[in-house]
């Protein structure tokens, strides 16, 4: 037969052979089509499909086939089935890989959920991109807006469609259940017009109402539904707040809850509308006309600001204003920390992917045999890679599914952990379709990252079809991957070490007072409360508090330490001209009862504390060390006089004492000049009482004491200073803990990766090690050799990581307190931790190497 057919071929019977082949192929096609029809396809479909499947005779056809979507999907499905079977055969590897990916994907999903809710989701307002916050600056320092200037802007800036300014105020409503506080937004200009949302019920303010400050109100949906029991006949009813009576004309839709505490919106009173140009107390907001860019609008704002400065040199000189997209303004403080967390979890995910990559590569030898068989059966390089990717896709899918479950738990935990009120819209965070979509993308991406190296490796194996031993090549690749892992985790460990150091510095830096056993009581009176009434209340409260058993001292101030600055402004030094810089600089002015500083345990450096002042006694002040140092370089502080601008004239105070700085804020290290005046010289209706006592559970006696003499007064807060400090530190603490946790996970994954290659190498070298041990090599020496190899790999990664940190740590700078991003201790600690972990990860295989039994090792010869 063989000879005959060959003869026929050479004798020009080629047509005959071709016919034969043609007929045979035709038969094959028809059979395939028949089978397909039996499974439900129409004849034409089946024929086309059969032709397609017949496929890969030439590369061209191969590519054409791959272009066909259905076929492509079908190929993937088949590969996924195969991959599933192959994974089931290796439960250990599969479990490790899925767990790694689940941690990486879960953490990424949880953090993304928060980031999406806080930073990315559009606001529930029409065309939120056109909303701009107007930030005003005076001499480069941020300052409040003014009603008259806002009016000018509204009329002079063509880019603004609507402009508003507002301030918030707490008023008291006397309802059926006694007095309660209501958050009121006092507006100037077109507040609702800027938001772009008409009330869901009733009508918006008319222009006349807005301009004249009419006593009308629009309610937030939350206020209407929770405080007014969703009264269906609310429109036209009145609301008595303090001395004012407002007529309700509308209720906002539930989606609009800005500012977050908003309950009642009302145009500012006619007197407030006439506020003189000097005062600055408004937050400004504008809506740009459609199609106007931020740059155009900013250009107009700058031009108008310059024109106003020329027109009103007394009040508008050195002022500037900057427009900022509303959403950015809302998230400005949260953005760096959130992006840092996101970058961290993505790094963890990357390390996890690399780990999976390593696991897949470790099976290289076995795989390459399997691949060779496939190649000999006619599989193309593309299909080999596809099968490999199918496997990593399957792993990523399982990891992703598990990860979403982790994220569901994680998001709730994060929401509970992150301090309430610090992250705008945090409460809306939930694993939703957007998160699932993001996860789907991350799963595919992880599969590609994890499968890339093994797939590339496979395609190379295929070229040398059948050569089983390619371990050396694979080892280099795996080593490179582990170096990358160590590098990434070094960056994360350095980051968390820096944050931990910064947190420690923040907590251990001197406060300037003694927070232990200090109870604070906050009572906010409305801004229109008369000074006499405030003083009368203060005296009664102090007397009542001092009568509480266990209370050794009670005092009052306008703002407690670590709660930020209060009233501030430039000062004068009597008899001396200050440098231009100092004469513009703001000094915090605080009011305090005479015993306040002693009560909180402030440190007097020289001089004396304030003393109760008689009706015509001298005006006295205490200054902090920073003020003394900045304003009195000659050191003659005590007895000198400083003056504060008050209603256009300078009021002088004699300095009687210098105290150590009090921390104004926990997170800001910048020392600020500060002066304490008698509380009687300051108008500030938000009273802050500080009580020194043995016991810290004073809530009940304090409430009872206040109820005794002023039953209508609402106490806003009773807390301890310790608790307040804890709260102030909670945001940086949580971020530090989270970052450290993620860095720990990253380090663990990298350690597993390192362990993997070192163990693999030891296994490969078992025979060699066995021979050397048999020839008398010391086990300790063998052990050291393996250990050294692990440490070298880790050190390369560590060095690369430290180099990378030079760039990345800069990003942390804004979040650090009291340490620089080049902090030596953090770097040394990182090197130490990494080397210890690396040593441990390589020590296990090293020990195994030194215990190789020569006889067992040699038996395989």
């Amino acid at each position, binding site marked *: 037969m063989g000879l005959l057919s060959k003869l026929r071929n050479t004798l020009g019977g080629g047509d005959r052979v071709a016919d034969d082949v043609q007929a*045979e192929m035709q038969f*094959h096609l028809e059979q395939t089509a028949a089978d397909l029809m039996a499974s439900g396809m129409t004849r034409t479909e089946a024929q086309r499909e059969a032709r397609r499947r*017949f*496929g890969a005779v030439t590369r061209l056809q191969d590519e054409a086939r791959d272009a066909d979507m259905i076929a492509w999907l079908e190929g993937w499905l088949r590969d996924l089935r195969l991959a599933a079977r192959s994974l089931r055969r290796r439960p250990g590897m599969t479990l490790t890989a899925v767990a790694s990916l689940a941690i990486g994907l879960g953490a990424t999903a949880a953090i993304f959920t928060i980031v999406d809710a806080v930073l990315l989701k559009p606001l529930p307002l029409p065309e939120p991109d056109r909303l701009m916050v107007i930030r005003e600056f005076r001499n480069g320092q941020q300052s409040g807006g003014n009603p008259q200037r806002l009016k000018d802007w509204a009329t002079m800036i063509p880019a603004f469609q609507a402009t508003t300014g507002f301030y918030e105020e707490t008023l008291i409503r006397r309802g059926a259940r006694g007095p309660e506080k209501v958050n009121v937004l006092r507006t100037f200009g077109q507040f609702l017009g800027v938001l772009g949302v008409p009330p869901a019920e009733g009508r918006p303010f008319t222009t006349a109402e807005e301009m004249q400050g009419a006593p009308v109100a629009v309610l937030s949906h939350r206020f209407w539904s929770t405080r007014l029991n969703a009264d269906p006949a609310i429109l036209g009813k009145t609301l008595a707040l303090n001395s004012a009576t407002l007529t309700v004309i509308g209720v906002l839709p539930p989606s609009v809850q800005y500012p977050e505490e908003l309950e009642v919106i009302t145009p500012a009173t006619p007197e407030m509308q006439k506020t003189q140009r000097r005062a600055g107390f408004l937050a400004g907001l504008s809506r740009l006309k459609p199609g106007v860019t931020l740059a155009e609008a900013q250009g107009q704002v700058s031009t108008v600001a310059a024109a106003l400065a020329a027109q009103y040199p007394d009040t508008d000189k050195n002022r500037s204003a900057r427009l900022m997209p509303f959403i950015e303004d809302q998230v400005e403080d949260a953005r760096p920390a959130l992006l840092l967390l996101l970058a961290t979890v993505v790094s963890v995910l990357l390390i996890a992917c690399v780990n999976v990559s390593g696991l897949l590569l470790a099976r290289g030898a076995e795989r390459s045999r399997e691949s060779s068989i496939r190649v000999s059966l006619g599989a193309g390089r593309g299909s080999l890679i596809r099968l490999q990717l199918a496997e990593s896709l399957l792993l990523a899918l399982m990891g992703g599914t598990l990860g979403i479950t982790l994220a569901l738990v994680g998001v709730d935990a994060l929401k509970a952990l992150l301090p309430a009120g610090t992250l705008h819209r945090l409460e809306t965070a939930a694993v939703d379709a957007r998160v699932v979509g993001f996860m789907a993308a991350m799963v595919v991406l992880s599969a590609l990252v994890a499968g890339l190296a093994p797939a590339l490796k496979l395609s190379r194996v295929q070229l040398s079809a059948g*050569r089983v031993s390619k371990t050396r090549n694979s080892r280099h690749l795996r080593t490179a991957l582990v170096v990358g892992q160590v590098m990434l985790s070094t960056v994360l460990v350095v980051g968390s070490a820096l944050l931990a150091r910064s947190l420690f510095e923040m907590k251990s830096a001197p406060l300037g007072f003694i927070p232990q056993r200090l109870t604070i009581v906050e009572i906010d009176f409305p801004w229109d409360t008369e000074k006499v009434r405030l003083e009368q209340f203060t005296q009664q409260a102090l007397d009542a508090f001092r009568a509480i058993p266990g209370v050794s001292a009670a005092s009052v101030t306008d703002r407690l330490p670590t709660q930020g600055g209060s009233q501030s402004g430039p000062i004068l030094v009597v008899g001396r001209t200050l440098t231009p810089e100092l004469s513009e600089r703001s000094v915090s002015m605080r009011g305090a009862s005479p015993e306040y500083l002693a009560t909180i345990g402030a440190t007097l450096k020289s001089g004396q504390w304030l003393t109760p002042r008689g009706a015509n006694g001298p005006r006295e002040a205490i200054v902090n060390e920073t003020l003394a140092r900045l304003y009195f370089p000659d050191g003659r502080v005590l007895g000198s006089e400083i003056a504060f601008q008050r209603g256009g004239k300078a009021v002088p105070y004699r300095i009687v004492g210098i105290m150590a700085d009090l921390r104004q804020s926990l997170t800001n290290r910048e020392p600020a000049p500060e002066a304490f005046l008698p509380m009687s010289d300051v108008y500030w209706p938000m009273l802050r009482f500080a009580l020194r006592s043995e016991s810290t559970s004073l809530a009940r006696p304090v409430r009872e004491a206040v109820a005794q003499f002023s039953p209508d007064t609402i106490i806003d807060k009773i807390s301890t200073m310790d608790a307040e400090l804890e709260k102030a530190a909670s945001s940086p603490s949580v971020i530090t803990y989270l970052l450290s946790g993620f860095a720990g996970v990253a380090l663990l994954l990298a350690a597993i990766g390192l362990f993997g290659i070192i163990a693999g190498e030891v296994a490969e070298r078992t*025979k060699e090690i066995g021979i050397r041990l048999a020839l008398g090599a010391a086990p300790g020496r063998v052990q050291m050799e393996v250990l050294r190899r692990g440490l070298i790999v880790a050190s390369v990664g560590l060095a690369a990581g430290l180099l990378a940190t030079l760039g990345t740590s800069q990003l942390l700078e804004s979040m650090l307190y009291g340490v620089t991003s080049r902090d030596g201790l953090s770097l040394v600690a990182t090197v130490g931790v990494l080397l210890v972990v690396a040593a441990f990860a390589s020590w296990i295989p090293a020990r195994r190497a030194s215990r190789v039994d020569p006889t067992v090792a040699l038996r*395989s010869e």
Partner: protein
Amino acid sequence: MASGRADSLQGALSLLVLKTLAFGEMHGYAITQHIQRASQEALRVEEGSLYPALHRMEQTGWIASQWKLTETNRRARFYSLTEEGRRQLEAEEQNWARLTTAVAQVLAWS
């Protein structure tokens, strides 16, 4: 030698075809179906490799072919094992067993 091993591996297809035909006469399509089913879908023989291999094996003399009618009265080319092919199958089966044991031993050391 490396090439020897590579041959054995590339010979996998001929081994599979020989083994399949050991069960009796079959046409090309049936061969692909059998290999696919017997391997639980793990191995799919590409037609582009199968027919050239069949023709090569026929020329080498391991198999013979004949046009016949199928049960459904279609004309198809049926392949069957020759005596030489049967010997080749035995040799290749042994080769394969040796190879897989060797590979398995190598793998056992990981």
